[in-house]
């Protein structure tokens, strides 16, 4: 070992050690509890997680809801990111700050705010009744729609910032060149900007999807009893049912499902993305 690589190894030792202890070992524990019990190897937990009607339904529900959140975040966020990338100077800084600020406020606080807005005697119902649009309060909270609205509010800033990051690296000369050569702005956008921004779109969609899979607070606070997500079920297995093996197996199934969907997204959407090799990214 040379002197230099020994120093590098020394530098890495503590942070690597922590990551192994506090992240890798817990993952190993999850796998161990899913596949082993007192007697040895067992596929019972995984089998229950994959066949029990309730678990399968909650798992599918979690995947569908996460996909909806990811798709809506990208669709709602894209024009915002585009608008930010077109700005400059102090105005841009202010607008980016307006998007970043909510991201730092606790998820719990942000979800709680939706109870106040969507509650039976909440702000929205109050306004609708005051304006004479509805006669009696609408059922807004404890619905699937409430979970969607709150989850998107929690994750949208992240989607915008990732896409904005990708967009601000796009070489604008290419768009000007297309315009000079006679392309209308919409064509220049469709043929050049959109494919070049696709990597940002895919990254944010996949990240938002994976983060939504683990959502715990939002469904528990603003969703109805039928809108529970797999995280809530896992927590119940650990705290109440005390079936740790089953809880771990559900975790494994969630992780596997998440990885599969993320991989598929890359394969399907990746074909539409232009990359740095095509010369579109400013270096």
């Amino acid at each position, binding site marked *: 070992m040379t002197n230099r690589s020994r*120093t590098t190894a020394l530098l890495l030792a503590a942070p690597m050690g922590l990551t192994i202890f506090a*992240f890798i070992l817990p993952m190993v*524990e999850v796998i161990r509890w899913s596949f082993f019990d007192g007697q040895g190897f067992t596929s019972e937990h995984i089998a229950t997680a994959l066949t029990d009607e309730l678990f399968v339904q909650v798992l599918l529900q979690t995947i569908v809801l996460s996909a909806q959140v990811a798709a809506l975040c990208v669709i709602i966020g894209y024009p915002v990111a585009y608008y930010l990338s077109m700005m400059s100077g102090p105005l841009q800084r202010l607008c980016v700050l307006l998007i970043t600020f909510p991201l730092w*406020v606790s998820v719990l606080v942000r979800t709680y705010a939706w109870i106040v807005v969507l509650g039976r005697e909440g702000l929205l119902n109050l306004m609708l009744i005051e304006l004479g649009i509805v006669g009696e309060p609408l059922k807004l909270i404890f619905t699937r729609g409430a979970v969607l609205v709150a989850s998107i509010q929690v994750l949208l800033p992240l989607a915008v910032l990732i896409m904005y990051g990708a967009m601000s690296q796009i070489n604008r000369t290419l768009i000007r060149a297309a315009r000079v050569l006679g392309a209308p702005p919409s064509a220049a956008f469709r043929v050049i900007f959109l494919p070049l921004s696709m990597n940002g779109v895919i990254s944010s969609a996949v990240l938002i999807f*994976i983060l939504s899979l683990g959502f715990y*607070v939002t469904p528990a606070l603003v969703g109805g009893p039928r809108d529970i997500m797999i995280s809530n079920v896992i927590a119940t297995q650990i705290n109440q049912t005390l079936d740790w093996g089953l809880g771990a197996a559900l975790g494994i199934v969630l992780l596997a499902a998440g990885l599969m969907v993320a991989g598929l997204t890359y394969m399907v959407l990746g074909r539409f993305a232009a990359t740095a090799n095509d010369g579109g990214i400013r270096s």
Partner: protein
Amino acid sequence: MKGTLWDSLGRSLLPLYFVFVVAYLVIPLLIVVPLSFSDTTYLVFPPRGFSWRWYSEIFLNPGWLKAFQTSLLLGVITAVGATGLGTLAAMAIVRFHRKTSFTIGAAFLVPQIVPAVITALGAFLLLNALGLLGTFTGLVIMHVMMALPLVVVTMTAALRQLGEGLSLAARVLGATPLKAFIHVTFPAVAPSLAISAIFAFFISFDELIITLFISGSHVTMPVRIWADVKQELTPVVPAAATLLTLLVAVLVVPIELYRQRASIKDRVKLQM
């Protein structure tokens, strides 16, 4: 003329759309503020009366005060621990060649893309096996791990931007590696260190799911709010929520402004 129509349409609608989305993101945060000053013992909109009673509740009620103190202590320890360890990792990462450097940097980010509930579950099982479940030590270890990725990203970017030139110059002029670090590298990256520490503090201060699984009798602020939201609907939760939002405003806004001025790239942060 389809193109120009779309163009002008976009130019006028886009700002409007932006305002609409920002309202969707920000207004829910502001709505809890008037509620926290309500004089009633139940939640009602619009709030009636004006009082500070729910704020004094947080600072006088032993349960809330303890939760606040636990969160502060945990946050500060996490900030120091994660910044220290993350900086060590970043110093190692920038020493590698491009490709290896990228791979090792990415490896440190993996904990961020695993759904929190799975990490929480694993932490619960591991700490239980080691007899650390419900201990403050267990909480510190998990919180530092959760905050580490963001520190690694921030410090790697800062050290890369600085380059090795200055520290090499110090070495050539006779400084030991330690001296070169203390007198040259450290002052140059001090702002990024401060930023990392504050980010790490907030990751710990806001963490709920993992804490809920492993904290035992150590109640943090989010755990306390969580229990209250589900049980009673007094304006004490809006008061706590307002305090937390205010803390973000005071600490994070100046940092974000500074960061934006410092660099346009490397802004996207991974959280949650």
